[in-house]
């Protein structure tokens, strides 16, 4: 299994790189979010939506998905190259992240032909934004405890929703929600009573209210269902199969790759960015980069970043895996990425010395307070989509084969 890139792939990579470089939109006057969970206003939303559409039209999104649903029917490795080059060229992120990475693959895997025909293409074009309705207030990522009720109206076949979902990113802009709700409160287990819906967000009785984050920005919502009626065909799979489908969504969410439409969901800040910030930083009268202790820390971060990237690569290509833990690298992606981002941001604040005290909106803040903001925003990664604690449980159980930690 030689992994040296073939001349054809190399050429394709160059072509993609050029297209992205040429077509990358000009930096807007407002700051762009670093993650799709940080889209805080309509300017950002429209800018990103237009960019996703442009990428799709150029043929660089959903490349490995079937042509009949709007994909391009090409090999996955081409999409992988596009994804990598998006990070290299630093293009803006794909705003319909939930659609591209979780809802879309789930529909492709569990959906009916009709559902695929209906939903997939608008996901790719960004015409129809998706949000996710799993977590509920008071239960966090403990999905077995989902309380939102979906009661089937025997006359119309519609489901009547009551309850509330939290951390519904982009719920205000979304057309649809992947929704986990309880259809049978008397089922044999708390899991067996759950069903999975592709729910319309514009139904009567559905209301999304934005939630302030610790950075005092918007970015996600709480969505309320008050006798909201959704059509019978919103149900995916059968009643009572919701848990199984939700788990399959979580597999995508936790960073296992394969099946997603592609595109970058985050702007990745790198050690190189921190270095470039550090070049102009002074600590106690001396350039920060001359401080041997900070140099030591910077190099440590650099090694981590290189290793993380190589490990991801190794996982994706099943290259030289440890036989005892073949799936370890994929399951670790989210944990490693989110904690790495936290450490990187904290270090980028530290190198600023006395100036580290300043926050965004201060005209003298280094890089406009990017890193101070990033430090706060970075908790989204270690909490959202299953906390780092939960991620470690999952790896301990599924990769290290240790007994369940309950």
């Amino acid at each position: 299994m030689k992994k040296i890139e073939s001349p054809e792939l190399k050429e394709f990579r160059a072509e993609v790189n050029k297209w992205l470089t040429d077509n990358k939109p000009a930096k807007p006057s407002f700051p762009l979010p670093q993650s799709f969970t940080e889209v805080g206003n309509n300017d950002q939303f429209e800018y990103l939506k237009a960019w996703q559409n442009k990428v799709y039209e150029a043929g660089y999104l959903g490349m490995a998905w079937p042509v009949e649903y709007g994909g391009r029917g090409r090999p996955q490795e081409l999409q992988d190259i596009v994804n990598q080059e998006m990070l290299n060229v630093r293009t803006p992120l794909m705003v319909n992240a939930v659609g591209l990475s979780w809802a879309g693959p789930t529909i492709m895997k569990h959906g009916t032909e009709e559902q695929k025909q209906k939903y997939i293409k608008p996901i790719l074009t960004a015409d129809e934004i998706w949000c996710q309705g799993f977590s509920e207030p008071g239960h966090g990522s403990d999905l077995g405890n989902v309380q939102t009720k979906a009661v089937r109206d025997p006359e119309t076949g519609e489901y009547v929703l009551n309850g509330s979902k939290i951390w519904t990113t982009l719920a205000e802009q979304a057309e649809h929600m992947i929704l986990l709700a309880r259809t049978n409160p008397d089922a044999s287990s708390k899991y067996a009573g759950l069903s999975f819906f592709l729910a319309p967000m514009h139904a009567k009785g559905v209301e999304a209210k934005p939630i302030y984050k610790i950075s005092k920005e918007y970015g996600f919502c709480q969505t309320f269902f008050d006798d909201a009626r959704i059509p019978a065909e919103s149900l995916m799979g059968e009643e009572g199969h919701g848990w199984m489908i939700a788990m399959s969504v979580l597999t995508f969410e936790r960073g296992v790759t394969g099946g997603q439409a592609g595109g970058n969901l985050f702007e990745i800040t790198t050690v190189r960015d921190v270095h470039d910030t550090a070049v102009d930083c002074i600590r106690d009268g001396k350039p920060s980069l001359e401080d041997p202790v900070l140099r030591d820390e910077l190099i440590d971060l650099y090694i981590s970043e290189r290793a993380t990237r190589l490990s991801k690569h190794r996982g994706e290509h099943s290259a030289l895996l440890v036989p005892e833990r073949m799936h370890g690298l994929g399951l670790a992606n989210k944990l490693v990425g989110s904690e790495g981002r936290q450490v990187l941001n904290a270090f980028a604040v530290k190198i600023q010395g006395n100036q580290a005290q300043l926050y965004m909106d201060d005209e003298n803040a280094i890089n406009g307070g990017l890193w101070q903001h990033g430090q706060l925003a970075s908790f989204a990664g270690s909490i959202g989509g299953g906390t780092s604690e939960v991620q470690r449980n999952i790896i301990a159980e599924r990769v290290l084969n240790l007994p369940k930690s309950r």
Partner: protein
Amino acid sequence: MNISEAPLHIDCSEELGLLTEAATNYLRDKSTFEEMRKLAETDSGYDTTTWQELADMGWLGLAVPEEFGGSGLGIPELTKIFELMGRFLFSSPFLANTLATQAILQSNSDGHIQDWVADLCSGSKIATLALTEPNNDSWEPTAITCTATKNGDSYTLAGTKNFVLDGQNADTIIGSFMIDGKPALIMLDAATTSSLSQLPEQLVNHARRSTRINFDGVQVPASAILATGDEAVKVLQYVFSLTYILLSADMAGTANGGMELTLEYARVREQFGKHIGSYQAVSHPLVNAMLLIEDSLSLVYYAATVFDGTWGGESEIAGRMAKSRSAEASDLIGRRAIQSHGGMGFTWECHAHLFLKRAQWGQYAYGDPTHQRRHLAALIID
């Protein structure tokens, strides 16, 4: 190693015990989350009625001799007040005013002491210090590039200071300037210095107020000089040493507050059918944080006990050790507070982030742990 071990000793007088009880009750009552969040939205960041109450309780002159209008207590008592203010996220110009008052007292300039100290203790005037500069980003007291140039009977100032705590609230500002290549402290009456170009800063702790001041062209009379040369250096070193202790106390207290908030949540919140505090992934990091906090408190109390404001010996060492450790403690628990609260911890509504932000600011003001350790290495190893 060059230093002799100081005796194990922490000052805990009876006065301190009584003061602690009274201050805890007062601040718990006054400094509610709701109240502090409201103040954070104001320009001044503090409540004038509360400020007057602090004056009436004698806190504004807590460590000021009675002859000058103060309460005549010591640094350990002052330190305890700062710890409790951190514990309850209290916001006010207390740090700025206390440090400036001590600077005036240390200057031995009778005129300034007579003119200002009683007013600063009574709450009728507020003072602050302008010591650090964007020009060199230094955390050390004598790295001064702002200048004061003699010009007839007066002095013309030049240069910019940043992180002037409560500059927007101050009636007087004491700045450090070079006069003929030597450090000097100059006291500006803000009311009479109308030409002062002052801009509010936006800090990581949005409940804290400070300004950036450009002094270019400001004229002050010779009488504005508080201290010069070696005397100015001594005052600066005294003030920095004291700042280490008071900021450390604030951070250790902040850490305690963050810990209590987190423990309350961990005791009642359930996930996967169990209280989250029963998961070792939650509880063990909190134990680690507790150990760091206790160490910080020990170092803070010790530093307050051995404090004499001089540079180069155990007083400076103790202050820098405290600053280093309490920064780490408050940073750690601030992060754990957010993380342990899960999704809620990431919302503005949850109080967890208030503790991290206060800790973050305290960590970088006057030198972070890496900086403090570098200076400690020079003091201890060489």
